[in-house]
């Protein structure tokens, strides 16, 4: 059977594996980089990666860094001026501060983060926390709001801005939809079960829906068993303490999400950080851990666990899974993979980075993911061997104390997963995954051609576009909204202070026209705001470029 888009009975995964092995046997291996501008990160072992792994982290020209610092310098000077005026009563104080009786104690609001919030963030605060009033599909409606006192307070005018193109929601496969046909089963379950659970998993909160969902998740990922939780953030922060404790070592990536960091800190284990996606740094840490053991007693570590994410949402980079798995096997460590953004979004059938690299899910010890991003629902899961999941059912804080997932949400995930696996009798799931892949490649290619600096792997649907200067953050977001496009801009403290960016999330529900509208608006705005910092020009035959890179897939 050579046609992977034919509807089958859930064995699609197995066939795909075979196909990958055939490709490898025929000797097709990695190709050389295409243009001068592309930096192909070195592959140490040619047979580990079955297809090219191209990531971009271009540095901006020097004048950009200088001007960014000039901007921040001016902002800081005016920040001090305003603080002085507030302290001496020349200006009304709108921000949080200590009471009179607390003035002699340790100051609470004098650190840099509070200074930054008061003086720089407040000026452009209207670009965040915008309330929306429709489903976050490819287009949505925003509530219009204005400010009378420079962003300290807002008021709603009562009007809504309709049909704003949504480039910020994590709606990778387009399952956030309100079509009644698609939501038939969800409405039925809502009428059967209601919305509340009113209990925790271990008391009376385990429904047959949860059992069905867990079996489906395990089948989807190709593992023994899975457990689902009501909240994605809580999945990480409540389960890592159950898996590791004092005397264990956690090796966590520099740019891990806050939920992983919180879970690691709550567990009480020793945490060591390795440079982002840098395998030499990780190997050095592993060797040091095994050679030197625990800090004072020199005993062996009870467990060494590596925490990584599938796709890093601020950089758009994909984890180097084959190298990490080979390192883990060599040094006998455990691997915890957080696929919040990558499940459903990468891989030929949407099964995440494990499938993207053609590896077996048995290589990863703990597979974690969320249903918020690609499935249009809420919640998270942890999957792996049966022993692991049985242990978590009894020892996880989330299972004992947190309410379980609500039934209509569970049904939404079930229907989305069945659609992805092809179990509902259509090829809609596979079409969505392919549409996402096409949209991602098109969007990234066009942005590179226009000359913007884009970070991340060419296959990741998260596209960060670098803005650098603080003045441009506000200007960019406001002007895009005027053109009826909603974007998310990010600055300090979520990113390094000089690398502020606009982050686009491509969705399978975006049509070519919508992407073209956005790209034209970006072109215009890029010229007006001078955002096209890239020094590398693309090849003049874009069709040829795309073909030679992707003939490996089909």
């Amino acid at each position, binding site marked *: 059977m050579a046609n992977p888009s034919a509807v089958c009975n859930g064995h699609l995964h197995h066939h795909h594996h075979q196909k990958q092995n055939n490709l490898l046997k025929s000797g097709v291996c990695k190709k050389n980089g295409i243009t001068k501008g592309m930096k192909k990160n070195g592959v140490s072992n040619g047979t580990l990666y079955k297809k090219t792994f191209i990531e971009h982290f271009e540095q901006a020209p020097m004048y950009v860094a200088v*001007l960014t610092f000039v*901007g921040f310098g*001016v902002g800081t000077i005016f920040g001090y001026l305003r603080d002085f005026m507030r302290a001496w009563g020349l200006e009304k104080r709108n921000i949080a501060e200590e009471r009179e009786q607390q003035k002699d104690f340790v100051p609470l609001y004098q650190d840099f983060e509070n200074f930054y919030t008061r003086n*720089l963030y407040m000026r452009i605060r209207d670009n965040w926390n915008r309330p929306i009033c429709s489903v976050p599909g490819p287009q949505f409606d925003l509530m219009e709001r204005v400010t009378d006192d420079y962003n300290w307070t807002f008021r709603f005018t009562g009007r809504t801005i309709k049909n704003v193109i949504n480039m910020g929601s994590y709606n990778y496969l387009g399952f956030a939809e309100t079509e009644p046909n698609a939501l038939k089963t969800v409405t039925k379950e809502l009428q059967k079960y209601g919305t509340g659970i009113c209990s925790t998993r271990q008391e009376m909160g385990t429904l047959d829906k949860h059992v069905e969902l867990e079996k489906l998740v395990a089948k989807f990922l190709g593992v023994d068993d899975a457990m689902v939780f009501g909240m994605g953030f809580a999945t990480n922060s409540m389960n890592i303490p159950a898996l590791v404790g004092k005397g264990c070592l956690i090796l966590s990536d520099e740019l891990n999400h806050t939920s992983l960091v919180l879970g690691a800190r709550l567990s009480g284990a020793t945490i060591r950080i390795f440079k982002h996606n840098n395998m030499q740094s990780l190997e050095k840490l592993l060797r040091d851990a095994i050679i030197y053991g625990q800090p004072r007693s020199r005993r062996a570590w009870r467990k060494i666990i590596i925490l990584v994410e599938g796709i890093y949402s601020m950089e758009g980079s994909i984890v180097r899974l084959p190298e990490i798995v080979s390192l883990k096997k060599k040094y006998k460590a455990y691997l915890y993979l957080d696929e919040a953004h990558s499940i459903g979004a990468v891989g030929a059938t949407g099964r995440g980075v494990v499938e993207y690299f053609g590896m077996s899910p048995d290589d990863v010890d703990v597979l974690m993911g969320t249903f918020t991003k690609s499935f249009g629902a809420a919640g998270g899961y942890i999957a792996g061997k049966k022993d692991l999941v049985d242990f978590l059912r009894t020892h996880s804080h989330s299972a004992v104390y947190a309410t379980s997932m609500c039934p209509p949400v569970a049904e939404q995930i079930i229907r989305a997963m069945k659609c992805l696996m092809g179990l509902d009798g259509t090829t809609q799931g596979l079409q969505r995954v392919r549409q996402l892949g096409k949209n991602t490649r098109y969007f990234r290619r066009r942005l590179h051609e226009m000359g913007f600096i884009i970070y991340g792997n060419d296959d990741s649907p998260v596209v960060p576009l670098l803005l650098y200067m603080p*003045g441009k953050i*506000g*200007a960019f977001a406001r002007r895009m909204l005027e053109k009826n496009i909603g974007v998310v801009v990010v600055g300090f403290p979520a990113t390094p202070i000089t690398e502020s960016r606009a982050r686009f999330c491509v969705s399978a529900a975006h049509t070519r026209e919508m992407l073209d509208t956005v790209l034209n608006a970006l072109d215009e705005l890029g010229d*007006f705001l001078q955002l096209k910092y890239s020094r590398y020009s693309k090849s003049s035959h874009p069709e040829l470029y795309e073909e030679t890179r992707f003939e490996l897939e089909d």
Partner: protein
Amino acid sequence: MDFKSMKNYLYWLYCQFELITCSYLMEPWEKLLFYTFNISMLVMISYTAYIFIPVHISTAFQFFFWLGWYHHNDIGN
């Protein structure tokens, strides 16, 4: 971007200046303060340049010229 006129181009340059120095984010009185400070610094520097640079150049020129004249005299004698 095609500029219809010189005025448009100057306006665009002004926008770039605003974005780079964060004066786009400032309230009107802060902008007034900032521009007053900048313009007064520029005026002072250009006035200083206007007064002093010709004097400095002529002094430097005299110095080098005198050196050459002295050298010639030395060789002559």
